[in-house]
């Protein structure tokens, strides 16, 4: 499954980058979401995929009884999901404010610090 998902993630990356390259400032936000999802999947998929073995220790045991999925990439991705949400919220507020102030949604109009 990993090679197949690698191709899908590559597609997500391409989609996100394409949106970030657009001049419409709103599309940039959509690209940002796609990119963060893709980046999270890169970490998750490259670490190797395992079905039905979540990294949990059964009650009464001191360690999992069988091989479990690697918990470290999961912890990293968890942090990344939350942070990318924070970044997205900030970017949205920024775009909103920018649009309110300079009345344009074309990034190419934003080439100087003075409007």
């Amino acid at each position, binding site marked *: *499954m*990993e090679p*197949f*998902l*690698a191709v*899908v*993630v*590559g*597609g*997500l*990356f*391409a*989609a*996100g*980058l*394409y*949106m*970030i*390259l657009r001049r*419409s400032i*709103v*599309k940039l936000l*959509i690209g940002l*979401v796609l990119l963060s999802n*893709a980046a999270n999947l*890169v970490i*998750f998929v490259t670490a*190797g*995929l*395992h079905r*039905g073995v979540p*990294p*949990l*220790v059964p009650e009464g045991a001191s*360690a*999992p009884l069988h091989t*479990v999925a*690697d*918990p*470290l990439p*999961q*912890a990293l*991705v*968890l*942090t990344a*999901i*939350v*942070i990318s*949400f*924070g970044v997205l*919220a*900030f970017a*949205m*507020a920024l*775009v*909103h*404010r920018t*649009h309110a102030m300079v009345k344009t949604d074309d*990034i*190419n109009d934003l080439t100087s610090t003075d409007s």
Partner: protein
Amino acid sequence: MLIAVLSGFVLAVAAPWVRQYTGRYSGWVIGLLPAGLTAYFASHIPLIAAGETLRVVHPWVPGLDIQLSFYMDGLSLLFALLISGIGTFIFIYAGSYMNKRPDLGRFYVYLLMFMASMLGLVLADNLIALFVFWELTSVSSYLLIGIDHKSETARKSALQALLVTAGGGLALLAGFILLAAAGGSFEISELLSRGDVVREHGLYLGILILVLIGCFTKSAQVPFHFWLPSAMAAPTPVSAYLHSATMVKAGVFLLARLFPVLSGTLVWSVVVPLFGAATMLTGIILAMRQTDLKLILAYTTVAALGTLTLMLGIGTELAVKAAIVFLVVHSLYKGALFLVAGSVDHGTGTRDITVLGGHAKALPITFAAAALAGLSMAGIPPLLGFLGKEMLYEAAAHADWLFYAVLFTLAVVISGMLHVAVAAIVSLRPFIGQGQDTPVTPHEAPFAMWLGPLTLASLGLVFGLLPAMAGDALLVPAMGAVYGVPIDYQLTLWHGFNWILMLSLLTLLAGVFVYRSRERIRARLTDADPWINRGPEYGYFRALDFLNWGAQWQTRFFQNGYLGNYLRILIASTVVLVGGTFLLKDNLSLAWQSGSGMRFYEVVVAVLMLAAAILAVERPSRLSSIAALGITGYSVALIYVLFSAPDLALTQILVETLTVLLFVLIFYRLPRFQTLSPPSARRRDALFAVSMGGLVTVLMLAAMDARIAVPISEYHIAASEPLAFGRNIVNVILVDFRALDTLGEIVVLVLAAVGVYALMKLYPPKSEGQ
């Protein structure tokens, strides 16, 4: 010896306070340090004269075989004495000359740093240490030349000196590293005995060229001579110091230092003397063209440096002897004459030789110093200069090949002739005959300002009368150190009636003739100005312009202010560099096969995810785009569910819901989607995006097989319950093993929240016109 070298740096730190508390005697107080150093170095004369050498080693970067080691033999001792001895008079002089200037304290700092760096340079045994001191002299001379930082000329000249000498310094560093590779050691004292190995080595030519570039830039050889006259922007004491004993002599010093290692080959004997002769003639001819005392002297320094290079290039025993004697001759008269120029400037308010004249009565002591130094410069017996000139002629006449012997004899005689004329111009013209009115009523310089020039000039006379005094103790050991084998030699003023003496007389007569027709020669040379202005300095400015133009062009190209442009450059360089590495490295395997197999429902989820992402990209309406985006996010959550990551799935679902809500809430305040780019731009961007996506796929496939160590998570799995008392290992990692990361994450969220609040709620008070 370490303390001796570093004391200058230490005092430099305190110099401004010394200046403050000692007032007009500051020059005398600070002069105590170089005076003490002179005494310290002089105490080594008997040891060195007996043929011993001294080596002190302090560990510095032992891992790289770099030591802070010092080595004292005849050559380094001679230079150390010149630096500290002349330095003493320079400090005393400067304390008086610049007494009124508020930046005198700062000036002392730079000058002390400069002196200490110079001492380090001549005493260093390790090539890297030498290089560090070498660059320190460049930096401190930059500060000294640019001390009038409000003047554009000063800044420009300082930068010019820095760029030329530090640029050459880079070549020198490369040369040193090659030299150490070829000779097997960074220590000069060891390399000195391995000259044969270095000369036979395949890297010899590279070493020689790089080292010569370093020496020639520092010692202002053609075509790098232009920075030296520009450096006249510095106050006179600095010029006197820079020209007589330090800075520009550093290049010559290094040539002499490495003489036993690098000289003796055909390339050396052919190339080095040619540069020297060209520099000698260029310098002395251009000196005839100037009317400013300091500029005349600056060009004669260029000529003197050329002479020294010529002698070292000829490389016979005679030539080495001549080089050492002439080095001392030049240091003494040049130091004195520069200080005289400063005193004349101080006493009359001008340095223009077409205005000056007849001031011998007003400045008697300065005139005495000038006359003595001038006689030495002209090479008139019984001064040391006479001896120096005789030796130059003899050495040139005995060059290895007949052609070179004729060529160089001619060159030194012409140069000697012009030297006579220039000596008369700078040391007689201001004092005798008739002059015009000067801006200041002529008056003699104070004691502190004639002590130095008079002492230095008198030394030329004393050494001339008693050549053995300086010769046996100082000069002969230095000659031996340069030549590589001890030299037994007796310096005498009188070489007997021979054809060299005839040549000397001829020079003198011709010199007087040139002096008498100096106005006509100057006019002729001024006619050649357009041609001279196209010289190397013009090339320097063109190169600088080109550099600026290139920097502007590439800034405009890479940073033109358009976000898309930046991204495309980033993407393209990543794809080319990383992808290129993949193509070049053939031992990377891609994990197209994988153990986990494919299940139908997993494929459906993955395809759904990609399809939704494509929909989100191409939908023209905002709402459908956001809906598609939501589908992608939930599909990602499903992937997490399917592959054993329940916590991730939970978080992803929560965040995705919030994201969609946020988008819907905020988007109706934002403009509708617009199609702003033309189709061609969209196709171009698609190409960039797809190539980057492809690269990510390839990277993932390569990374999957690349694990080379036991993952740290095995420890996490084993330790989760026993150590952290938690059974959800992912949670334990987040709040326990990597708790600091999580703290950072919380900080980021708080900052984002504050930022969002500020952007949404706070508006600046409306200003006029809005």
